[in-house]
């Protein structure tokens, strides 16, 4: 048995609450006998103590009236000088513990505010008309369909422009190629042959359509007046006159390699046309790549045309700057 907070083992009450008479030890019996005459008296007192405990436990305790506290707090505030106001004092007064939820002033205020808000919202909900004179207006208003049509029109125009540009580019390229072919076929190119060569052959080709070599007798490099023979890596070192006149003769033909010649057939319109071909001594036809105006003609007769080609006239500014720099 646990010792009660307010009852020691020297009190008879402790044994009345926690022991039966026949459970008492000799020492405990000695303590009890000081106050109790008999077992019967012990049992009668025990019944009272147990009964009282039950009564007081079961007894419903009274709750004080909340109004008393309110009155007392008012009395207290009257008694005390007015001091500082505390925020939690406001909270306590708005939400007093002793009142029911909907009786609390704070809840009533919240409800009132919510009602006002609701009324204002409902009242002004339909009243959306505003004075147009005070508003900025978009006079150039377009419907969605109109805007879409306009947009598609712009896109079409752009596509047409791009097509035209491509067409023009291709046309100029074809023209360039055609002119180049004309130059290549019409001009006789005489190549200075070595003494031991059997035939003095000038090998040209219609490389657009046929890669077969064309043999030309009596080819003489010295007779070529409109062809510019240059090394491929010395193209930019040509004189300005040769570009402007369209025809110039390279005095350095002697330095041309045996197996690779560059023939620049220049016309006013095709100033930049450059032929590059490889010429084998024995066979005299193209064995390696041939480039025409930047177009790469491979040995198997296929041509890879670049998308953009530029004329010499277009690059005249650039060339001018280059020569100035030189």
């Amino acid at each position, binding site marked *: 048995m646990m010792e009660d907070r307010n009852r020691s083992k020297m009190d008879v009450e402790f044994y009345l609450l926690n022991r039966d008479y026949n459970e008492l030890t000799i020492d405990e019996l000695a303590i009890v006998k000081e106050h109790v005459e008999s077992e019967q008296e012990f*049992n009668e007192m025990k019944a009272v103590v147990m009964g009282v405990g039950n009564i007081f436990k079961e007894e419903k305790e009274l709750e004080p009236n909340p109004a008393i506290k309110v009155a007392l707090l008012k009395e207290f505030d009257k008694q005390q000088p007015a001091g500082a106001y505390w925020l939690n004092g406001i909270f306590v007064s708005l939400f007093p513990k002793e009142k029911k939820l909907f009786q609390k002033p704070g809840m009533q205020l919240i409800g009132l505010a919510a009602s006002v808000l609701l009324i204002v919202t409902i009242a002004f909900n339909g009243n959306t008309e505003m004075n147009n004179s005070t508003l900025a207006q978009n006079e150039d208003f377009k419907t969605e369909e109109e805007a879409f049509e306009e947009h598609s029109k712009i896109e079409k125009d752009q596509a047409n422009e791009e097509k035209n540009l491509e067409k023009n580019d291709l046309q100029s390229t074809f023209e360039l190629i055609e002119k180049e072919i004309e130059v290549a076929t019409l001009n006789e190119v005489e190549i200075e042959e070595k003494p031991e060569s059997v035939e003095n052959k000038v090998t040209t080709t219609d490389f657009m359509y046929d890669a077969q070599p064309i043999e030309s007798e009596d080819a003489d490099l010295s007779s070529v007046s409109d062809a510019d023979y240059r090394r491929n890596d010395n193209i930019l070192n040509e004189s300005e006159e040769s570009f402007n006149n369209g025809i110039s003769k390279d005095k350095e033909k002697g330095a041309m390699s045996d197996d690779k010649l560059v023939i620049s057939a220049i016309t006013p319109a095709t100033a930049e046309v450059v032929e590059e071909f490889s010429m084998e001594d024995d066979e005299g036809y193209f064995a390696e790549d041939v480039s025409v105006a930047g177009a790469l003609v491979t040995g198997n007769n296929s041509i890879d045309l670049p998308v953009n080609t530029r004329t010499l006239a277009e690059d005249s500014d650039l060339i001018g700057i280059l020569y100035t720099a030189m």
Partner: protein
Amino acid sequence: MKLVKKSYTAETDENLMREVIKGNNLAFSEIYDRWSKPMLNYFYKMLWQDREKAEDFMQEIFTKIIHKPQLYNPSRAFKTWIYSVANNMCKNEYRRAEVRKGTSNSLHDNIIVHDSSAPDKEHDKNIFNDRLKEELELLSENHKKTFILRFKHDLSIKDIAEILETSEGTVKSRIFYTLKKLGKNLKEFSPVAKTIMVGVCLIELVQYII
């Protein structure tokens, strides 16, 4: 700058009273929340189970705290102090009641008169409780106070002695005397008495059969 006052729920009664003396209304509110219910029930028990009177007395005791907080000595336990104030208020009321009794020559309305003409219900527990309440009401004021403070409010002998301004021996004696008296008056409910009663009934039944 402080905007919110500190909470007093964890403070002792004595510290709260120090704040009440300074004029702190939150401390007073906390004291009220702690002690209003025990005081109300004490007065209810001591003043003939009259709820209105008990509430009046409860309000009065807190009004005293408001107007004369300096009467409380903080070196003393608040619990014993407030019960002793309540006890003195009850004493005064008993005196006034005596005067009224002399003039009106009638019993207090709330005193329950024991009706012993219901022997068939004596074995019922509720009857025992009713009888015990009646017996408590019939006790003298000092014995009743001591008994209620001891068994209802669960105060120690020392605290009761302080509240009633008497010695601990007197308190023990009063408690023992009350238990003995109530035991005698309610002996028919004790386990031994029940056994004896059952035995007597059985003997009478056997004799009747023979």
